[in-house]
């Protein structure tokens, strides 16, 4: 039994199964939800098997077609990829369950949601596992195109507009990335990440290529000030789609950035470049939080909160240079997992509230006791992780980041994290305070069970992950480009 468990390439099936299911869902729309649920369960299973294998036998690779790099493409199942797969499995399973209840059979949206989402899922998993610069381009395009189609799913003018913005920004980003890949191939004659990591020279050409690829990926991951396309696209999509876009899709270009900066070009990137990204991250945290505080619609508030949370991920670039590298690395990857779960849960709650109340204007939700109040409690539970209160996974992640900032002696990042947390509690409390406002709004119907339980389960998982963060933390470092001890307690 163990022999099979420890040698079979389980991770490959997280790509193949959704691909095949997407085709089936396209062919037989009536059976699409069933295909989606079966896929969701099996992907979760395959992710678990991959985790088991990495935990016991370490990271592993697979040469596709039997061709060794640089001729062929290599898939790599290592720690960073695994954390992304875990996020993908958790968010994907929950959103799939929710979507079976959200979209009704008579709905045209359902007919296209499933094939598009399953393709997106396959693309995300393929991207997380890819170890090849050009293949990353193809998977990234698959991710972007399916996200765009999903963002435009409900066909409202706002959604179409948001999708178009997303598409144009995405095209600009991916072509910039591809030009960087072209320069790299011209200089080194390979696009394999591992081989490049051994041969890249820290010269002007590498810097130019890195700058091009980074610029393109920043646009795709919507780092401030390149975030202009994200709030309209995320806020006007159907809620299950918003959950996927915020919880899963923004992390795809992020992982490529991490791989580029820490595996391929560790010596090329200068401290100045790293701090530039860190400062942009700080800008994102503050700007996104302030914008979230000012929003009048619940979904836009959550979307701007994503702009802010993306900022935290970029603190890795300056903080992972030095002795705190492993601490910052684990912190950021835990944050990816925590944010994925909590943000997806929040968008799903938004969806349920909008379904019940018919709108998501904050002013109109005042006095939302009763059924709506229960939804807001789930929102609050997800927010515990988002804000980073103990004992949630968000707390552990931020704690590690703060430790890393202290060790690195970079106080301004510490200050930004603190300020960001404060602002986050501000906008979350703004929503929660609604539940306690007096008003005479008529009582609302109870939401169906399938629209209530998945977001709750996801936010509970996000909190509980904080209590069981040890294994994910260890797994994050399997095959990671940084090493060292995780500094859990640091007295300044």
């Amino acid at each position: 039994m163990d022999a099979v468990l420890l040698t079979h390439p389980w991770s490959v099936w997280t790509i193949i199964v959704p691909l095949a299911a997407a085709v089936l869902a396209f062919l037989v729309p009536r059976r699409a939800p069933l295909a989606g649920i079966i896929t969701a369960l099996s992907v979760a299973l395959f992710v678990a098997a991959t985790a088991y294998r990495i935990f016991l036998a370490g990271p592993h690779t697979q040469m596709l077609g039997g061709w060794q790099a640089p001729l062929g493409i290599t898939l790599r199942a290592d720690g960073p990829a695994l954390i992304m797969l875990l996020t993908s499995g958790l968010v994907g399973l929950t959103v799939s369950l929710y979507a079976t209840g959200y979209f009704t059979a008579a709905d045209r949206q359902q007919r296209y949601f499933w094939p598009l989402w399953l393709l997106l899922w396959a693309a995300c998993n393929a991207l997380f596992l890819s170890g090849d610069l050009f293949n990353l381009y193809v998977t990234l395009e698959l991710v972007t195109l399916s996200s765009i189609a999903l963002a435009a799913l409900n066909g409202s003018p706002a959604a179409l507009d948001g999708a178009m913005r997303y598409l144009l920004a995405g095209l600009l980003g991916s072509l910039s990335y591809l030009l960087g890949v072209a320069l790299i191939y011209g200089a080194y004659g390979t696009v394999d990440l591992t081989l490049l990591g051994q041969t890249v020279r820290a010269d002007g050409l590498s810097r130019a290529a890195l700058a091009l690829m980074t610029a393109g990926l920043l646009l795709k991951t919507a780092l401030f000030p390149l975030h202009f396309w994200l709030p309209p696209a995320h806020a006007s999509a159907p809620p299950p789609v918003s959950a996927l876009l915020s919880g899963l899709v923004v992390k795809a270009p992020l992982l490529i950035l991490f791989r580029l900066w820490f595996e391929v070009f560790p010596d090329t990137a200068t401290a100045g470049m790293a701090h530039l990204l860190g400062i942009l991250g700080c800008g994102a945290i503050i700007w996104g939080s302030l914008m979230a505080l000012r929003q009048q619609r619940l979904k836009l508030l959550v979307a701007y909160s994503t702009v802010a949370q993306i900022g935290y991920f970029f603190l890795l670039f300056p903080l992972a240079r030095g002795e705190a590298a492993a601490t910052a690395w684990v912190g950021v990857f835990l944050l990816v997992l925590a944010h994925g779960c909590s943000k997806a849960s929040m968008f799903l709650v938004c969806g349920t509230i909008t379904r019940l109340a018919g709108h998501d204007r904050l002013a109109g939700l005042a006095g939302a006791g009763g059924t709506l109040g229960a939804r807001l409690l789930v929102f609050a539970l997800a927010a515990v992780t988002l804000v980073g209160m103990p004992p949630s996974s968000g707390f552990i992640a931020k704690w590690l980041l703060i430790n890393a900032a202290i060790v690195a002696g970079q106080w301004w990042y510490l200050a930004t994290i603190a300020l960001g947390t404060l602002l986050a509690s501000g906008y979350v409390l703004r929503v929660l305070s609604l539940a306690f406002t007096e008003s005479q709004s008529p009582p609302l119907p109870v939401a169906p069970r399938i629209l209530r339980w998945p977001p709750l389960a996801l936010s509970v998982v996000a909190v509980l992950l904080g209590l069981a963060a040890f294994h994910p933390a260890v797994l994050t470092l399997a095959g990671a480009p940084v090493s060292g001890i995780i500094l859990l307690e640091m007295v300044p």
Partner: protein
Amino acid sequence: MTPGPLLLFDLLLPAVLLWLAWRSLTSSDLFRAVILFIAFNLLLALAWVRLEAPDVALAEAAIGAGVTGTLLLAALTRIESAAGRRLSRPARWRPAALVLTGTALLAAAAGLLWSLRLLPTMPGGLGPLVDRHLAESGVDHPVTAVLLNFRGYDTLLEVAVLLLAVIAIWCLDEAVPFLQQPLESPLLTGFNRMMLPILLLSAGYLLWLGSHAPGGAFQAASLLAAGLLLALFSGASLPAQWSGLPLRLLLVLGFLAFLAAAIIGPLTGRALLHYPPAWVKPLILLVEWLLTLSIALILTATVIGGRPTGSRPYPPPASPAAEGRQR
């Protein structure tokens, strides 16, 4: 390649390409802009030939100029019938923004050009490695070997992207005809009668050629798509009972076959896309043929630009001759 007698050509061609691109971007009439863009793509195909990339040249002429050109023209017609005809000029910018953007672009150009001097003088490409393993790949043409075997995974995902495009387009809208009525002309009838078989034949030829010379599934598929579009513009249409499951099945057939071939590996203890040595050739051939069929339909579907409605794309044909042309 060193500058030789063709130096003048090598200076002129990029210059003309840049000029065409510039004109296509700045001409205020969009129809003119699209035509200039098609001319740009055709000349680009010439540049590919000069750069010794005949496969890319074929694809550029067929897909870049042909399919993209058709897509743009079709979209332009639809947009103008929905929103009216407009001239397109650059948005009015504040001078500061203009200066900033201009400086950024010029700085990027300078930086990139300056970094080119660091390119190694004797780069090591993957050419020799491809040649060494060509015999095991199942095909004799290096580019096809890379596409369908060495980097077949890229191609698998690329076909997924194409399929995704059709699903996305179908999700967006119903098919809107962009011709008020089918093209009709006695000449066209005769032309179709001759050209459709020729297109079918040359698509098969290109596909067969792909195993040992420039050509292959994508180029063949665009020829086939051209034939389908020609028939469509002349008034042919898909019977309503075919536009449901049968059409969807044909659209995904190539991808499904590719996917099925890919998982033989993991099911038999090999890597994904690792074909059993004895089956390499027939498997690749089968996948390639089915891919051509599916891609041709996918390209056609993208030009039609919406999900099938089940009704006829045009009002009933004006002349009895149009009936005879349906095939």
